[in-house]
C-alpha cells in the first residue's frame, strides 16, 4: 500500500535511504588488541593505539574482516577482495586520532540486495549500495559536570560495519522492515548482536520527498544515530510531513544533518551544509590495501548458516507453513531454533501453531524474548507428543500448557500429578456415552431427525462426565456408532 502525503498541490511520496551501523562481534577492536566487552568501567578498555598515543599504529584485526565478509555474503552482496582504508578527518574530543579510519571509495563489500517481506504476503527488494568497515568513536558525556565533558574511550576503535542502502524505500514500514531484516541477518550470522538499545546497531536516516510519479531525487536531510525501529519510523513520518510543508510554503529542503528528539518526536537541525565537515578522505598510509583471496571468501561462504530467506523457503516448501507463519518464525534466529527443536520429528504445522499462537502470545504479554521462555522447547515438544499419542486432548494440553508456564515442570509429570491422562479405556468411555444417550432422549430424537450438530451436546456430556479426559476421537466414534445404530 502506497504511503503518500497529501500536499496542497499534489500528493508526495517519500524516498528513504538508510545507513545502518552494526558493531562487529569480535573480541578485540578493529585495529587494536583492546577488549570490546560492553559495559566495562570507563576508559578501562583502551590501548595506546585507541588513545592515539604518538607513534602508535593500527593493525587490522582479521576476525573483523571475516565478519564483514560473512555479512556481505549474507546480504548476497559482491565481496571486494581488494579494499582500502581511508582516513576521515575531523576533530572531536572522543576521536583521539583526529580521524576515523573508515573506507571511502573502495569498500570491502559492494552491491547487494535485501528482500523485505510484509505481513500481507507481499515483498520488495531493496538495494544495498555497500558495506564498509570503520572504527567507532568514543563517548562524550556532557552531563557529569557543570563545566567539563567526560570522555570514555572504551568504544573507541571498536569495529563497525556501515551498511548503506540504495534510496529504494518508500514508507516508514519499508524502513522498519529493512532494519529488522538486517538485524535478523546479522544475528543469524553472528556478526552483530543487533541490540539497538545498547547502541550496537544504530541508524542514519536519509529522507527526501517528491511528487508522486516523479523520478527525481530531491535534497535529502539526514537524521543521525536513531536507535530503535520505532524511532526510525517516527523520523520518516516527521521528516516527510516537515518537508512537504516546506515545499507547500514555497520553501526548500536544505541538505543538513539533523538529530531526533524522541521525547518531542521531532527532528532538529544539527548542522547545515555550510558548517558541514570536509572530511578530507585519503587512503590511510599506515595500512596497506586490504587484500584477501577468493579462497577465503569461499571458505567463509561454506560456513554460513542457513539464513532467514532460505529458512522461510524451507518452512513453506517442506513444512507446509504459510508464508506469514514462516516469516514470524524465521525473523529471529533464536525463535527459529526454538521452533525447530519443537518441530523436530513432530507435526511441523502443529508445532508452528503452538509456538505462534500459544507461546508467542505469552511472551509478548510478558514482554520477554524466546530465550527467557518459561517453557523449554523440549517440554513443549513433549507436550505435543502427549497430544499425538492420545495421552491428552488438545483441550487438556492447553490446561497443561498453562501449568507449565507457571511451574516449568515437564508436561508428563503435570499430567500424571493432576490425573489429566486421557481416558482411552473404551469400556469407561462407552459407559459415559451410554449414560449420555440415556439421559438425552430429546437430543437423540433431534439427531435422528437429521440435526447432526446436536452431536456436540452428547460430546459435552461425555466430557463433563469424564472431566474432559475422554479421548475426543473415541467419544465421537462411539457416539456416532451408537446413535446411528
Amino acid at each position, binding site marked *: 500500500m502506497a504511503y503518500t502525503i497529501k500536499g496542497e498541490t499534489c500528493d508526495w511520496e517519500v524516498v528513504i535511504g538508510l545507513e545502518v551501523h552494526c558493531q562487529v562481534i569480535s573480541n578485540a577492536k578493529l585495529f587494536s588488541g583492546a577488549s570490546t566487552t560492553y559495559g566495562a568501567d570507563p576508559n578501562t578498555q583502551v590501548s595506546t593505539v585507541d588513545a592515539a598515543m604518538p607513534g*602508535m*599504529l593500527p593493525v587490522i584485526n582479521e576476525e573483523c574482516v571475516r565478519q564483514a565478509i560473512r555479512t556481505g555474503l549474507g546480504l548476497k552482496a559482491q565481496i571486494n577482495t581488494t579494499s582500502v582504508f581511508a582516513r576521515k578527518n575531523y576533530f572531536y*574530543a572522543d576521536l583521539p586520532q*583526529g580521524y576515523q579510519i573508515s573506507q571511502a571509495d573502495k569498500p570491502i563489500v559492494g552491491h547487494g540486495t535485501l528482500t523485505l517481506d510484509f505481513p500481507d504476503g507481499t515483498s520488495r527488494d531493496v538495494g544495498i549500495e555497500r558495506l564498509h568497515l570503520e572504527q567507532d568513536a568514543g563517548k562524550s558525556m556532557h552531563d557529569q559536570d557543570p563545566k567539563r565533558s567526560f570522555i570514555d574511550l572504551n568504544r573507541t576503535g571498536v569495529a563497525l560495519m556501515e551498511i548503506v542502502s540504495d534510496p529504494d524505500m518508500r514508507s516508514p514500514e519499508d524502513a522498519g522492515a529493512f532494519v529488522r531484516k538486517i538485524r535478523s541477518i546479522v544475528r543469524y550470522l553472528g556478526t552483530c548482536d543487533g541490540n539497538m538499545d545498547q547502541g550496537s546497531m544504530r541508524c542514519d536516516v536519509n529522507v527526501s520527498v517528491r511528487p508522486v510519479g516523479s523520478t527525481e531525487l530531491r535534497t535529502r536531510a539526514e537524521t543521525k544515530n536513531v536507535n530503535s525501529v520505532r524511532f526510525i519510523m517516527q523520523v520518516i513520518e516527521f521528516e516527510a510531513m516537515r518537508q512537504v510543508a516546506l515545499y507547500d510554503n514555497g520553501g526548500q529542503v536544505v541538505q543538513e544533518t539533523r538529530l531526533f528528539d524522541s521525547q518531542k518526536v521531532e527532528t532538529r537541525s544539527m548542522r547545515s551544509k555550510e558548517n558541514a565537515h570536509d572530511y578530507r578522505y585519503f587512503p590511510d598510509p599506515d595500512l596497506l590495501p586490504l587484500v584477501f583471496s577468493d579462497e577465503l571468501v569461499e571458505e567463509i561462504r561454506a560456513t554460513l548458516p542457513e539464513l532467514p530467506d532460505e529458512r522461510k523457503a524451507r518452512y513453506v516448501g517442506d513444512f507446509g507453513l504459510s508464508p506469514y507463519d514462516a516469516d514470524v518464525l524465521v525473523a529471529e534466529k533464536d525463535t527459529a531454533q526454538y521452533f525447530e527443536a519443537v518441530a523436530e520429528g513432530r507435526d511441523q504445522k502443529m508445532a508452528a501453531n503452538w509456538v505462534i499462537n500459544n507461546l508467542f502470545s505469552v511472551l509478548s504479554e510478558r514482554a520477554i524474548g524466546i530465550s527467557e521462555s518459561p517453557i523449554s522447547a523440549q517440554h513443549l515438544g513433549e507436550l505435543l507428543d502427549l497430544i499425538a499419542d492420545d495421552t491428552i486432548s488438545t483441550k487438556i494440553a492447553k490446561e497443561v500448557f498453562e501449568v507449565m508456564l507457571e511451574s516449568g515442570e515437564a508436561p508428563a509429570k503435570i499430567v500424571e500429578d493432576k490425573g489429566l491422562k486421557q481416558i482411552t479405556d473404551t469400556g469407561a468411555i462407552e459407559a459415559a456415552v451410554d449414560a449420555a444417550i440415556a439421559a438425552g432422549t430429546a437430543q437423540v430424537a433431534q439427531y435422528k431427525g437429521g440435526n447432526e450438530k446436536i452431536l456436540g451436546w452428547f460430546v459435552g456430556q461425555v466430557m463433563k462426565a469424564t472431566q474432559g479426559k475422554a479421548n475426543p476421537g473415541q467419544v465421537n466414534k462411539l457416539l456416532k456408532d451408537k446413535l446411528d445404530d
Partner: protein
Amino acid sequence: MTDLTQLTIAQARDKLAAGECTAVQLTEAFLKAMEAGRDLNAYITETPEIALQRAQESDARRAKGESLGAMDGIPVAIKDLFCTEGVLTTAGSHILDGFTPAYESTVSANLRAAGAVMLGKANLDEFAMGSANITSYYGPVKNPWKAADGKDLVSGGSSGGSAAAVAGRLAMAATGTDTGGSIRQPASFCGITGLKPTYGRCSRWGTVAFASSLDQAGPMTQTVRDAAIMLGAMVGYDAKDSTSAPVDVPDFEAALTGDIKGLKVGIPAEYKMDGMDPAIAALWDQGIAWLKAQGAEVKDISLPHTQYALPAYYIVAPAEASANLARYDGVRYGLRVPGDSLDDMYMNTRGEGFGEEVKRRILIGTYVLSSGYYDAYYIKAQKVRTLIANDFTKAFEDVDVILTPTAPSAAFALGEKQDDPVAMFLNDVFTVPASLAGLPGISVPAGLSPDGLPLGLQILGRPFDEETVLKVADVLETSADFTRHTGGSA
C-alpha cells in the same frame, strides 16, 4: 689512552672484545664530551643515569661471556622522534610538553636489545619538518663545522641533532629518520655517513609520525662500516607496523667486500640541474672517477620525472602530516592551553603548541586534501609518485646503483634561508625522489667545498638491496679518504 670518543663502532667493538676498554669508559667519555659540547644543542634530553646503567649491564654481560654482539656497549644518541619508555619524548615540539611514553619504539628497543647504550635524545626539526634543524622548539642545532669566517652553520635536518652529535663526537652513532632526506642531507652537511633504508625495513612503531608512507629510520655514523653494523641492529619485521616488510635480515657488514668490479653505476641526467654548484658537480665527477677506477661500469641513465618529485613530495608529505598531527589536540597528553569551548581549547593548544613550519605544512596538507582540490593535488601527486617509482624500476633494469650528490650545497649559515621556505625545500631535491620510491639511499662524505665544508655523495639502490648500496658506499668512502675533522674548529 686514546680519546675514546674518536673511535668508530667497529673499532670500539674490537677494543671492547679485547678488553682494552669498557662500555662504562666509553660512555663516560661521551657523557663528558656531551657536557663540553652543549653549545651545539645536539641533545634535547641527556640521559646519563640510563647510559651508565646500561653500560654497566653491558660490561657485566661481557664479563660473563654473554656479549650481545657488535652493538653491545656502544653509546648512541636517539633522535627525539623515537618514543623512549620513561624518558621525555618531544619530537622537537612544544605541543608534546612533558610527554613521557610508557613504551619504547621498536627501533630503539631493537638497539637496546642489541646492547646499545642510550646517551640521550637528539635534537631535531619540529616533528622532523625541516632541512636545517632550525624549527625545533628547543632551539637550532649548530653544525660542529664552522664557516671560514667562524660563523655558525646549520646542521641540516631534520636529524640535525643526530648528525651534529656524531660529527662532534658527542655520540659514537645516532638514529635518524628520513622522510624526504632527513638522514642523508644532515649527514652531508656534517660530514658523516647517513643511511636511509628501504621503506619497510625498519619498523615505524613508536616513532612519532610525520608522513607515514615516507618515514623511515636509519643509522647515522662515522663510517659506512658502522652504518652496516648499526643497521643490522635496527631492522626487522614488526607485526605492529602493517607497512613493515617481512624480509630477511642479511649480515650487512659482510657485504663490504670492497669489490665492485663489473657493478653498474647509473648517473641520472636529470640530476644535473641548471645552476648546479660547480663544487658539487666536480665532486660528483670525482665520485664517478673513483668508482670507475675500482672497476665499476658507469652508465648514463634517465629518470625523466625527477623534476616533479619535489612538488609531489610537498603535497604527499604535508597531506599525511595534516592527519598524523591531528592527535595533538590537548585532550590526552602534552600541552593543553585551556579555552572556553572544545574548539577554543583546540585552537589555543595547537596555535601555541605548533611552530610556524609545522603549521605551514598542516595548512598545505589540509588544503591539498580538501574537497575540490583533492584530485588536482593529492591524486595527481600520487600519480607522479608512481611515475617516479617506475623511473627507478626501469633504471634498475640496467644498473645496480645510482650515484648522485646528496644536497645541492654545503651547510649554510644559521639564519640563512630562514624566511624562504621554498629555498629551504630545495635542499631535498636530490633526496626526495628515492624517498617517494621507498628506495634505500646513503650519503657518504666525499669531499670539501671551496670553503672547506663537507659535501656528501649519495648512492641509491634497489628495494631491500642495502647490501649493494653499502658495498659501493664503502668503496667510495675508501677512495675519498675523507678526513674526519670538523673544519675550522677542529
